[in-house]
């Protein structure tokens, strides 16, 4: 066994009445990739946030190489040897690439209050080049780069100073293939240098493949640490949820006849730069899966069908002939949409769970044209509880919830609305196995009740397991279509994606 690099001693953190981390004691060793797994709200991100200075722990002590780490913020954490790459975007618009990389560290380039911009740009470009990202220019405004490139810049920002501890918090879900390869390369380099990576991911196969050691948290409590080589995904699921998880994760039916009744028809849909002449027919009680590589245009299809795309050409028509050209018409005609970008496009983050769930159903909740707070509370509680949302109450603000619980609120909202057509973009992104199983179960029940679902997903297993029909997209167009079948393999789908 190699030496302990980071020792966490009885780390404790509360958010109001929620005990987010309960006296967690854990060791991280030199030269390892140490995965931290657990259900949504289990305390993984809170634990690493306390380490890296995003949150302040209530009690306990982190010791790195024998010295206490007490980061006041991320940059302070960097100077103490810890760094984090977060799930959501962590770069700032309006600043150059170089300014983003060195944000908070300007003093390294400042003499007598004057910042040496040229030196900063030069250093940033050298770093970008050393990572092989030489197409990114340090002097450019960061706004000129797409989400994935901005994530790569974040990788440079978080790792260029060779932190002793690198936390990778659910970052892979935000990255495409290229980004993942780069990230894994950096993680392995960190390990090989004798430092340590704390890797947080809900993709258990990925966790086993990439990590050396896995620690499990449940409801803020440390459960166990295992060697990655000794466990299977099922073992980890059991540790995470505290009981045996059955393997009927996905639908088990095959060959069920789908109704001939078309409930929604999209024809010749084109959104410049996103989708090109895409057509689709959704039947009653059908789950259509749409898959492809991250930039294939599939995410825009969801918006186009919901009337949320700009510059959309082509038509979206319901069975009764209604044309869907805007969001209001879509919602009025029982269409629901959950975006991949939960925080920015699906939720009102600075509002309560209650308001978020009730938002599209306010008309239905009115009594004699008046909204009653009590009715809204009852309505929100009913659907939040149905989705097993971990919360203090429906009055709690969305911003305080974990990623998975936010997704539960999004789904609760549309279940409450009782929509007939549901478009789900990446419904299980950043979601733990237990909630995933709940969502799949919910989708299956909805399907059986005659609801129609379009599920856009980057997870092939999910497409194979849940969809009656799978449409694969490439470069904005449909490149293949598959009917649900037991012998359908992931390689069949991948062949049409690349």
């Amino acid at each position, binding site marked *: 066994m190699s030496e302990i690099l980071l020792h966490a001693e009885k780390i404790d953190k509360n958010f109001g009445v929620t005990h987010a981390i309960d006296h967690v004691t854990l060791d991280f060793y030199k030269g390892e990739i140490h995965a931290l797994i657990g259900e949504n709200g289990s305390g993984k991100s809170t634990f690493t946030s306390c380490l890296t*200075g*995003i949150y302040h722990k209530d009690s306990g002590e982190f010791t790195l190489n024998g010295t206490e780490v007490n980061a*006041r*913020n*991320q*940059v*302070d954490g960097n100077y103490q040897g810890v760094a984090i790459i977060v799930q959501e975007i*962590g*770069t*700032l*618009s*309006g*600043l150059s690439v170089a*300014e983003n990389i060195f*944000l*908070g560290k*300007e*003093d390294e380039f*400042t003499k007598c*209050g*004057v*910042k040496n*911009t040229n030196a900063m740009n030069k250093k940033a470009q050298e770093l970008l080049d050393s990572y092989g990202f030489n197409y990114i220019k340090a002097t450019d*405004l960061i*706004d*000129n780069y797409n989400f994935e490139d901005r994530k790569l810049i974040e990788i440079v920002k978080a790792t260029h100073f060779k932190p002793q501890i690198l936390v990778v918090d659910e970052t892979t879900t935000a990255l495409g293939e290229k980004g993942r390869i780069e990230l894994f390369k950096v993680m392995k380099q960190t390990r090989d240098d004798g430092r340590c990576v704390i890797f947080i991911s809900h993709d258990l196969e990925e966790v086993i493949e990439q990590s050396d050691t896995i620690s499990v948290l449940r409801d803020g409590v440390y459960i166990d640490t295992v060697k990655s080589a000794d466990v299977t995904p099922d073992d980890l699921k059991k540790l995470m949820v505290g009981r045996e998880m059955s393997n009927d994760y996905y639908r088990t039916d095959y060959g069920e006849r789908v109704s001939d009744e078309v409930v929604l028809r999209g024809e010749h849909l084109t959104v410049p730069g996103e989708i090109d002449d895409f057509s689709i027919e959704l039947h009653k009680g059908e789950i259509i899966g749409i898959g492809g590589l991250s930039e294939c245009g599939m995410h825009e299809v969801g918006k186009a069908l919901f009337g*949320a795309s*700009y*510059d959309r050409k082509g038509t979206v028509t319901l069975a009764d002939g209604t044309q869907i050209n805007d969001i209001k018409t879509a919602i009025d005609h029982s269409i629901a949409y959950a975006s991949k970008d939960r925080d920015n496009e699906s939720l009102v983050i600075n509002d309560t769970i209650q308001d978020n769930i009730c938002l599209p159903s306010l008309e239905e909740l009115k009594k004699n044209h008046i909204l009653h707070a009590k009715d809204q509370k009852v309505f929100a509680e009913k659907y939040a509880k149905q989705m097993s949302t971990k919360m203090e109450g429906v009055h709690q603000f969305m911003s305080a919830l974990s990623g998975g619980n936010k997704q539960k609120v999004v789904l609760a909202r549309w279940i409450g609305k009782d929509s007939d057509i549901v478009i789900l973009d990446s419904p299980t992104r950043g979601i733990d196995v237990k909630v995933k199983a709940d969502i799949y179960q919910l989708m299956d029940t909805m399907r059986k009740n005659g609801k129609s679902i379009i599920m856009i997903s980057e997870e092939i297993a999910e497409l194979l397991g849940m969809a009656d029909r799978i449409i694969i997209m490439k470069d904005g167009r449909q490149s293949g279509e598959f009917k649900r079948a037991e012998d359908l393999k992931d390689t069949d789908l991948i062949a049409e994606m690349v």
Partner: protein
Amino acid sequence: MSKFQKFKQSQVFGLLLLIFIAFVFWAIFKTLAPETFGDFNRLQTYLKTALIYAVGGCGLYFICVMGPFDMSVGANIVLSSVIAVKMSNSFGYAGLIFAPMIVGVLVGLLNGLVYIKLRISSLIVTAGLSLVYEALSIFATNEKNVILGTSYRAFGDYPWNLILALFAFCLCGFILKYTKIGTYTYAIGSNEVVAKNMGVNVDKYKVVAFVLCGLFVGIEAVLTISYGTSMTSESNLASMARNFPPLMGTFFGLAFKKYGHPVVAIVIGEFIIQLLFQGFVALGAPTTVQNIVTGIVLLAIVTMTIKPVKGAVVK
């Protein structure tokens, strides 16, 4: 990205666009009123006014980029101008220059501290404090008109007005590009929470932005009183009208920020606004028509320049 697309994002393109807009307005009014508009002497006069407002526009830029707003600029100008006259009587040019700067900084500091401590909208804070600043100017003048001594009016004309204004523009450009304050101004405006997580002391730099705004408004007051030579105290928020001329330049700065030279945009933007105003004056158009057309043209220029992404949230 094609060469033309790259050129369209370049600093040179932004500068040429500004000059082109100025030229178009000059050409239109020169054609319509060849005798009364736009000869060399008149252009110098337009520039003289534009320089005054552009200095204030530079100050407001720090605040507007971050997100808050300062409604007390007008009251600050009045108070600083009044104090400048009073101090010039005792300390000559030193009083004229430094007293309004100190007053401006103190006003900015108070604005910033109250905004940070009370945690209420900057609009409300600065509008409320404007009443206080107006009252202070009334106390200072006994509600009488104050006049700057004839021997202290050098900053009202070339070359000293230009020198002082250029000093202010260089200072603004320097702070934005070569100090942490500039970086943090943009960082806080982009995402306050991320900036905080990166160790940026958000509250401190918000106060700094208000202080800088006050400083530049103080310099604007030096130019204002030197050019206008007299100032009357105002009450009941009448000073608010003085907020808008510098703000117009700030709009240009914000719109042309992506080209990397907001200060240049503020200055040329104010000059464009002056061309418009003076053009209408030359045509004999009523003030109401001038205001309507100027407002529409300003919105049109800013909209065309920013070209917001469809679907982007604009607040």
